[in-house]
C-alpha cells in the first residue's frame, strides 16, 4: 500500500478525502479511486498490512501466552471497557482493540464502546454476518409514526446489495423471504446434525419460522476477481479475529484497500487523527480536513472537492461536532439538531440453550466460524403482530459438542477424568436473539471538553439506554427461544437474559441520520449532508432506524451508492 512519501508536502490537494479505513471507509476508498478520483484516506491509527501485520494469525494454542488469557491487572489498567464483551481482550487479538486509558469516554449510563484504531478498523474483527434489509425495515418508521421516514426504499439499494455481495463474497442460501431478501450468494456452509434436525422440527411445527445457514462474508467458492486480489477459500480455522492469511473473509485490509491501491489513485495515510472538517462560509462547502499527525504531533491540512466521513458512527459525529463554526455552532451540518442523537445498537444476549440427544455417535470436522440464522417472524404481517412491542428480532445460534473445558468444574481427576477429557461431551444447542433498537432523540452523545484524550482533544459523553419497547421485546425473545427449542425436543432448555448494555452489539448507528427533511435529518437520500453538499457520511451514523440484522452489508451498499452519486454530481459540476 502506498504509504505517505512526501508527495503531499508539494501537493496536499486531492479530489476526495475519506476519513476512516474500516468497513465503509475501505469501500469509499475503493469506489472513489476506481472512478478515477485522487483519493486520500486518513486513518487515525497505525498501519496494518494484510497478512504481514497479523502477528498471531498462525499461532497454535500453545504459542499464545497464558493460554490466550490476559492478566486481570492488564485488563483493569488498559481494557476495562473493551473487556465488557468477554471475548475481545485475548492474547490472540487484543492488539485490535483500543486501550481505554488512552481513549476515554464518559458514561452517563453504561455504554460499551468497543473500538479498534488502525488501518482496517473493525473490519478485521467484525462478525461477518451479512443480511439485507427489506422494505419492512425501510417503511417501518413511516408506518409506526416514529422518528423520521427513511428517504430510500429497498429498490434503491437492491442493485448495490447485489454489487457488494458479489464483490466481497457472501456465502448463504436463498430462502425467498420478504423480510430477509435473497442475495447473490456463494454456496452456504453446512449445518451439523443437530442443527439440521432442529431446522426440520422447527419448520414443521411453526409455519412462520425458517432456519437458514448464517449468511457470512466468507468465500466458499471464490470468483476469478476475488482470486486475482489474492483471496482464497475459507479454511475453517475459526481464527478470523486474528486476521486471515487466506483473505477468506472480507476486510478492508484484505480486499477493498487492495483494490483501491491497485488503481494508483489512493494515498493511504495512517496515524492521521482528524480534528475537524474545514468549512468555507463563502463557498458554503467543506474545503478540507484538519488533522493531527499522531507521530510528529503536527497539525496539517488536506484539501479536496468531496469528503467522505467513515470514522464509525460515534467518531463521525464527533468529527462534525468538533467542526463547529460560526455558521454551524453545534456541529458541522447540524441545523437539524439531530447530530449525535438517535444512537442505536442491536440489543442481544437474550435467548435460550439446552442439550440435544440422539447424536452421540456423530461429530463434525473443521471449525465453522458461522452458525444458523432464524430470520425475524414477529410483526412481519397482520398475523404476527405483537401487542407489547413493535419491530422484531432474529436469532443467531448453533450446535456443537462440549469440549474439554466442561471438566474443569467437575469433581473427578486422574485416569478417569483423562478418559472423559479424551471424548467430546454432550451436544448443546443455543440461539441468541438480536433485536431492533428504536431511535430515540434523547439517546445521544455529546462533545465533552472537560475530559480530553491523550492528544488533548475533546471526548464523548454517552447517554443511551434501552427503553420499554426493547425491554418488552427481550421478554418475548427469551420466551420464544425456549418455546422453539423445547418444541424441537431439546432437553434441559434454559432461557437467559444476560447483562446487555448499549454498544455491546458493536453496531452503533444513527448519530447523523438520513431523512427527507433538512429540518429533521442530517443527510439526504444519497448520504449527502443537507447543509454541506460536498460532505457524505456512509457509516453507521447515517442509519435512520436499526432493523434487527447486522448492519455492515448495508453500510457498504450505501457507500457504493453514495460514491457513485457523488462522482456523478462532481462531474456535473454540482459539488
Amino acid at each position, binding site marked *: 500500500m502506498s504509504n505517505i512519501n512526501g508527495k503531499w508536502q508539494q501537493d496536499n490537494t486531492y479530489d476526495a478525502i475519506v476519513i476512516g479505513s474500516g468497513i465503509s471507509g475501505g469501500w469509499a476508498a475503493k469506489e472513489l479511486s476506481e472512478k478515477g478520483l485522487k483519493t486520500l484516506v486518513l486513518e487515525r491509527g497505525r498501519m496494518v498490512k494484510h497478512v504481514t501485520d497479523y502477528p498471531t494469525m498462525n499461532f497454535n494454542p500453545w504459542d499464545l501466552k497464558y493460554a490466550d488469557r490476559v492478566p486481570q491487572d492488564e485488563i483493569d489498567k488498559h481494557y476495562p471497557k473493551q473487556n465488557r464483551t468477554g471475548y475481545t481482550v485475548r492474547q490472540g487479538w487484543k492488539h485490535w482493540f483500543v486501550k481505554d486509558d488512552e481513549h476515554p469516554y464518559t458514561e452517563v449510563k453504561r455504554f460499551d464502546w468497543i473500538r479498534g484504531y488502525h488501518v482496517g478498523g473493525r473490519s478485521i474483527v467484525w462478525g461477518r454476518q451479512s443480511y439485507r434489509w427489506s422494505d419492512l425495515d425501510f417503511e417501518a418508521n413511516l408506518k409506526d409514526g416514529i422518528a423520521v421516514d427513511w428517504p430510500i426504499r429497498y429498490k434503491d439499494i437492491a442493485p448495490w446489495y447485489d454489487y457488494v455481495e458479489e464483490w466481497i463474497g457472501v456465502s448463504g442460501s436463498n430462502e425467498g423471504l420478504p423480510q430477509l431478501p435473497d442475495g447473490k450468494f456463494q454456496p452456504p456452509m453446512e449445518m451439523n446434525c443437530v442443527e439440521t434436525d432442529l431446522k426440520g422440527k422447527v419448520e414443521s411445527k411453526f409455519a412462520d419460522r425458517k432456519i437458514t445457514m448464517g449468511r457470512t462474508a466468507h468465500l466458499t467458492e471464490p470468483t476469478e476477481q476475488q482470486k486475482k486480489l489474492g483471496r482464497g477459500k475459507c479454511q475453517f480455522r475459526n481464527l478470523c479475529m486474528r486476521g486471515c492469511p487466506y483473505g477468506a473473509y472480507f476486510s478492508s485490509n484484505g480486499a477493498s484497500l487492495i483494490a483501491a491501491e491497485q488503481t494508483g489513485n489512493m494515498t493511504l495515510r495512517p496515524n492521521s487523527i482528524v480534528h475537524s472538517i474545514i468549512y468555507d462560509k463563502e463557498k458554503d462547502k467543506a474545503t478540507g480536513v484538519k488533522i493531527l499527525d499522531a507521530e510528529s504531533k503536527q497539525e496539517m491540512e488536506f484539501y479536496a472537492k468531496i469528503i467522505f466521513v467513515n470514522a464509525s458512527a460515534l467518531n463521525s459525529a464527533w468529527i462534525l461536532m468538533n467542526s463547529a463554526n460560526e455558521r454551524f455552532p453545534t456541529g458541522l451540518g447540524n441545523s437539524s439538531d439531530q447530530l449525535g442523537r438517535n444512537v442505536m445498537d442491536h440489543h442481544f444476549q437474550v435467548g435460550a440453550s439446552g442439550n440435544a440427544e440422539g447424536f452421540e455417535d456423530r461429530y463434525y*470436522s473443521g471449525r465453522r466460524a458461522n452458525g444458523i440464522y432464524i430470520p425475524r417472524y414477529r410483526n412481519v404481517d397482520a398475523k404476527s403482530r405483537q401487542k407489547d412491542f413493535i419491530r422484531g428480532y432474529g436469532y443467531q445460534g448453533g450446535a456443537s459438542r462440549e469440549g474439554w473445558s466442561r471438566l474443569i468444574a467437575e469433581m473427578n481427576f486422574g485416569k478417569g477424568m483423562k478418559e472423559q477429557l*479424551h471424548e467430546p461431551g454432550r451436544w448443546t444447542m443455543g440461539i441468541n436473539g438480536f433485536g431492533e433498537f428504536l431511535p430515540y432523540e434523547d439517546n445521544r452523545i455529546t462533545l465533552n471538553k472537560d475530559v480530553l484524550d491523550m492528544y488533548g482533544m475533546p471526548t464523548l459523553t454517552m447517554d443511551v439506554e434501552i427503553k420499554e419497547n426493547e425491554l418488552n421485546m427481550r421478554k418475548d425473545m427469551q420466551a420464544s427461544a425456549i418455546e422453539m427449542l423445547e418444541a424441537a425436543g431439546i432437553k434441559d432448555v434454559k432461557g437467559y437474559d444476560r447483562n446487555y448494555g448499549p454498544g455491546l452489539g458493536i453496531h452503533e448507528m444513527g448519530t447523523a441520520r438520513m431523512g427527507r427533511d433538512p429540518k429533521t435529518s442530517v443527510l439526504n437520500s444519497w448520504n449527502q449532508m443537507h447543509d454541506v453538499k460536498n460532505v457524505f457520511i456512509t457509516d453507521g451514523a447515517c442509519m435512520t432506524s436499526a432493523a434487527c440484522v447486522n448492519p455492515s452489508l448495508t453500510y457498504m451498499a450505501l457507500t457504493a451508492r453514495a460514491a457513485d452519486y457523488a462522482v456523478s454530481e462532481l462531474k456535473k459540476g454540482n459539488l
Partner: protein
Amino acid sequence: MNRREAIKRTSILLGGTLSASAMMGVLNGCKAEPSITWAPEYFTTDEGGLVEAIVGRIIPLTDTPGAIEAGVPQFIDTMMAGFYQEKEKNTFREGLKKVEEDAKAAHGKPFAKLSEEEQDALLTKLDQAAFADGVDRGTPDFFRMAKELTVLGFCTSEAGATEFLKYEPVPGDYKGCIPYSEVGAAWATS
C-alpha cells in the same frame, strides 16, 4: 523463554518426553527425592516438585502423555509468575503448603514421596471439598485452581492437543455430520 521452548528444553533434558514419568510409574512406591529438571521462575524447586507430583496425578501419564509430559508444571509456573495477582498466588502457595502438611501429618513423608494411592487419597479429599454440591465456587480455592490450570495447560499444550486430543491447524473444510469414529477423539480447539 516462551512455553514452547520451555517444553522443548525439558524434553531434551529428559532425553525423551516419557522416560522420567514412565520410570516413576515403574518405581511406584520407592521414589527418589523430588527433583525437577526445569528452572522455575516463580516457584521454589521444592514447590516445583510438589506441583509436578500433583498435576501428574490430576492428568497422569497413560499410553498418552500426561500433565508432566505436556509441560503443565512449567505452564503453571508461568501463570504464577506473570498472570495471577497476589491474592491468587497466595491461595496457590498456601494450598501447596497445606498439601505438604497433610502428607506429612498422615504419612510422615512429603507428598511427592507418597505412593500413588496415598497421593490420590489426599487429592480426593481436596477434590470433594472443592467440587461438592453446595460448595461456594466463587471463593478462591487451591484445588479448583490446580485443576483448572492442569486441564487448561494440558489441553492447550502441543502434546495434549496433538498426541491426546485431535488437532487440525488448517482443516480446509467443514463437515457437519460425520461418524464420531472418523475423528476418534475430542477436538482440541473449537
